[in-house]
């Protein structure tokens, strides 16, 4: 089971930190967690991938599901600090062209 930390910044942005392998086994947990955040009214979410050692397409799919929900709620989902290995998954699916990874969590919602 993957461990996912969540905390809220004073500006209302929710920061989600998956630690370990965000793969097909963890995808549903991630999806459900994002859905709960949205239900609680956090429509601005940053997923910090700094401590995510592995991402597969199912994990990426869960993030897209959360993105859909966030946009529908008038907010957005941003990703930050992917490792080079994780970034490869974005490139393989061309997701890097539509969803730009941010360099750090703090400024993920700037500009």
């Amino acid at each position, binding site marked *: 089971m993957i461990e996912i930390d969540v905390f809220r910044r004073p500006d209302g942005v929710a920061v989600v930190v998956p630690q370990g392998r965000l793969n*097909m*086994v963890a995808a*549903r947990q991630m999806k459900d967690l994002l859905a709960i955040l949205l239900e609680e009214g956090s429509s601005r979410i940053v997923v910090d991938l700094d401590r995510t050692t592995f991402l597969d397409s199912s994990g990426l*799919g869960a993030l*897209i*599901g959360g993105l859909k929900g966030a946009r529908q709620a008038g907010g*957005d989902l941003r990703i930050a600090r992917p490792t080079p290995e994780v970034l490869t998954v974005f490139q393989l699916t*061309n997701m890097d*062209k*539509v969803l730009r990874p941010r360099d750090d969590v703090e400024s993920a919602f700037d500009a």
Partner: protein
Amino acid sequence: MSKRLLLIRTIVVLTAVLGVNYVAWRWLHSVHWAAWWIAVPLVIAETYSLIDSLLFGLAMWRLKERDDPPPAPPDRTVDVFIATYNEPIELVMATARAAQAIRYPHETWILDDGNRPEMRAAAEEAGIGWITRSADWANMPRHAKAGNLNNALLQTEGEFLLILDADQVPLPEILDRTLGFFEDEQMALVQTPQWFVNVPDDDPLGSQAPLFYGPIQQGKDGWNAAFFCGSNAVIRREALMQLGVSRYAGEVEVGVQRALKTAGTVIAEAREQLDPDDERVIRALDQIEYDLGRAKRELARGVALFDVTYKFQKRVAAIRRDLVEADLTALQADLAVIAELEEMTGEPGSGLATLNPVALEQMAQRDWSPLGAVETVQALVEAVDVDRAGEAQPIMPLATISVTEDMATCMRLHGLGWKSAYHDEVLAHGLAPEDLPTMLTQRLRWAQGTVQVMFRENPLVQRRLTWAQRLMYFGTMWSYLSGFAAIVYIAAPVAYLTMGILPVQALSTDFFVRLVPFLIINQLLFFVVAAGRPTWRGQQYSLALFPVWIKSFTSAFGNVFLGRDLDFAVTRKTGALDEGPRWDLIKPQLIAMAALTAGVVVGLVRLAVGQAAAFGTLFNIVWVVFDLAIFSVIIRAALYRGFNPGVSPETPHGGASS
């Protein structure tokens, strides 16, 4: 190279040389132009058959008869999916219990698209998982089996998926015999044969496909183009999900580009109808136009799409808020159209990229109140934005462009660089249709699905496929054109026997010396490739079902290009099975047979009264007899009264038993 492959390649080369020699000679030296109305169709039909034969030869060139599979690695996680919609509970449960008994550790799921309480109860009682569509699918296009599988994919988590139709009962060793292939990390899919237990030895409905589930798949496999056939296949989840995510990224991009383009037109239209005194609105439109231009420039510069749309949406929302008081009356009328726009994106069978450009154009042409224009721009951008409105799930791994999701999905997987394998061992026992109407409906569906893919995603222009892969997919589509050739092969001998019209210039030695060796070598290729598998039934049906193949082209054309329902003009199944033979369903074939027979009678009369040449008449009668032998199968099919279980079926081809 094995002796067998050497022999096959030798025959393939001979077939190609003799075939090209014959058809080139036909075009250049022997078309009877005066009788062009039959001569030209015949030479075209012959060219068609030659290309068919060359494509078959290309597949056989790399015939890949895989050895025993590598041993299945331990500790992989597998989900077994049994897709059902309305099949009888007992039939589904028989398959499900067999699936449960598969030896390799796995989880079994019944994917119940019918959402039946009694199905659920039966599954739960047996300790089998039951999945039905999630709430996301309410009021969304359902996409039949592809939708059913896409839904289940997001509710399970195994590394591999075994896909089974409700009437394909798996053997306990099915996973042990297939998972080993996935040790190759690039392997996305392993397909095994579909073989049916309820079919007598003489297979009157042509249910078994021993040539397809055998040499044809093995040939495609040699070019890394083994097909996914919807059931009895194991798939790597990561490959499917990667396909789903990359399709999503691609379609969102196309959709947003298109929407931004239309948004520009909408604003221009609104501007024209503006009262020049309404400065507030003019300013708002100016702002939106500016933001629109900036969005387009940013996209062109390669700024990430979601950043561009997010900023643009926020800007438009802000402008709109400022403007809300500006125009309330005209807004009412526009709201209806905006709602219509949202509905449009929910049109079944359309991905974002297929959002109808004509409809978008019509939106742009409408008279807009200024605030309405702002609303519409926003609706347009939202409609094609990340949330993929109009689809239940943003990620749709199994292709929804065709009624047969398997072929399109497999082609896209190959396009992403994944591999597939065909393992020629019967690992499931299926049930085939037992009556003519069901069989005809099923064949029509398969053909329609294939033709839909050809029209929507023509393999010949898929740049990410190798040329051999493109030709392997195209070859299957090409084979369905045989319906048109069949008509010519019926008409030509009838024209000669009844009117004395010869489509070739002369039935000369030149003609026979080119034709006969080609025909013989072509049959020899079949014979060697089949290696004892029956091929005659398949050859019969490829011509005898000519009305089905033709209908598949016309209906798929109407569906893809004219937006018609696929069932447009399809004969509905009526009445019970016991009504007797359904001659009405094979009327075209009966008419063809009557014409052929009448041709022979007239030909003999003409010969008797000295109006026809003996050799020409004899040659054409031989041709007619061949045609009748081909078509005779459809009579047997109509008379077939279902499988008698007293007769045990032949041992399955290939596999553990051979």
